[in-house]
């Protein structure tokens, strides 16, 4: 019995996503513009990093070639999470308009409904920029142990995406209190993605603890890069910590779950 409902759910999800994919691809010009824009956004972000390196050769112990790895890993993970759950940032609109009530009435968890309601295909090109940076970084850097590097990159791509997806859920959960905080959802998630693409060694103690442990952004790009290059890492953020990424992902999910549940219960309806 349980298996059949599970399978029915999957079929339904596939049907919804299939229709969303067809819907997005059917407006060809708009879709092409979206794809091109997402690509350019990624390129401009890479340019921001490059501009800093036009002034210096080494930042926080990493060269531009090394930072390409940090950028690539964190961008692939962030863009993939954005593709799957990024549309949660529409929640404030539903809350402000009161249309969120409809979701509460349906016999499915609210989060599952919202996540499965859309897939943002335009993020695909953004992932592409990350892949280019990662491959570029892997080819220009000296990688002492390729097998270990492959393992840590795979670990980062899977659990790093989980870390960012959990942050999207956390930010969306906060919207039940903030209401008009769409900008905040963006800055929180983009802020942690920004932090994730920097060499964490430039941070002071408080920031290291914040983005190393509280919001584990450094786990996604910086720590795996240290392992790939065989570097020891700064105080508070030793390289071996990269292997604990699954724990960091678990911690992020725990926080996201708590905030989301509290948010859903906090909502009192718009009347009507």
């Amino acid at each position, binding site marked *: 019995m349980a298996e059949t409902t599970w399978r029915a759910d999957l079929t339904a999800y596939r049907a919804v996503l299939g229709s969303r994919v067809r819907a997005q691809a059917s*407006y060809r010009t*708009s879709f092409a*513009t*979206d794809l*091109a*824009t*997402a690509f*350019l*956004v990624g390129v*401009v*972000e890479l*340019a*921001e990093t490059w*501009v*800093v390196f*036009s*002034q*210096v*050769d*080494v*930042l*926080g112990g990493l060269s531009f070639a090394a930072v390409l790895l940090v950028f690539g890993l964190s961008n692939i993970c962030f863009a993939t999470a954005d593709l799957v759950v990024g549309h949660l940032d529409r929640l404030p609109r539903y809350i402000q308009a009161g249309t969120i009530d409809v979701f509460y009435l349906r016999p499915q968890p609210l989060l599952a409904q919202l996540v499965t309601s859309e897939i943002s295909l*335009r993020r695909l090109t953004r992932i592409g920029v990350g892949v280019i940076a990662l491959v570029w970084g892997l080819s220009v850097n000296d990688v002492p142990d390729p097998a270990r590097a492959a393992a840590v990159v795979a670990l980062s791509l899977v659990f790093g995406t989980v870390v960012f997806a959990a942050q999207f859920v956390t930010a969306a959960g*906060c919207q039940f*209190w*903030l*209401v*008009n*905080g*769409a*900008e*905040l959802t*963006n*800055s*929180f998630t983009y*802020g942690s993605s*920004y*932090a994730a693409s*920097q060499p964490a060694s*430039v*941070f*002071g103690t*408080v*920031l290291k603890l*914040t*983005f190393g442990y509280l919001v584990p952004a450094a786990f996604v790009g910086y720590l795996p890069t240290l392992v790939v290059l065989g570097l020891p890492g700064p105080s508070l953020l030793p390289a071996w910590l990269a292997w604990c990424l699954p724990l960091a992902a678990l911690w992020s999910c725990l926080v996201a779950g708590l905030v989301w549940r509290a948010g859903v219960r906090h909502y009192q309806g718009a009347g009507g």
Partner: protein
Amino acid sequence: MGTWQLVRAGFRQQSQYRLAMVAGLATNCVFGFIRASVLLAALDASTGAFAGYTRESLAAYVWISQALLGAVLLMVPTTAVGERIKTGDIAVDFLRPVSLLAGHLWMALGRGLFTLLPRGVPAVVVGTLTVGWFLPGGVAPYLLGAVSVVLAVAGSYLGAHCVALAGFWLVETRGLNALYGIVATFLAGLFVPVDLFPGWLRGLAALTPFPTFLQYPVDVLSGRVVGLDAWSHLATQAGWLLGMLLLAQLLATLGRRHLEVQGG
């Protein structure tokens, strides 16, 4: 309805969402900490002139630009106009006794100026508490800086307004909006000051109004640019503002002719 009332309405509208303000301030500060760490580390590692920036002036750059972020419309340039064009409500706006542009611009100015109080001032305070005093002495930087900030708030709104008006022809402006947001943010000098760009990129930025939205008011307010140079900054800002005003008027006139609203 008077201009002043529109500004006040924008001011009061923004003052309603208090928690969102606190949250916005918190994110501004977190971004400030990250940017300050990266740029100060780059300054320490640099062997070149670093465009004449010192620790103080770089800290001033980071924290004053963070302080202006909420008031200046850059990263997420969404406007009510864009939404109203998409839904067709814009047809009603054209019938109002206030011009489309004036109605939205004055409200935006009110919202922006209100945002400076709860988000701008505390961000500067947090900055001075963490990196030390960086504000300039004397009165001139503050007086000229105030004018520069008002010009930047109005100018950045007009830029976003013009992008929204493109919706008369494009219908879906989400892609354009996102692109504008990232390019404007980059060329305004949010992540790295424009003066640290390589020469050709600085030249490219100077061909756009974006540096006048952030780099210019920060330069004037922090006292990095004084005297005649400060006045020249203000003049450039005013010039771009005027240009964008004309563009917005032109787009609205053309768009109105192009507009077709269905239903009865």
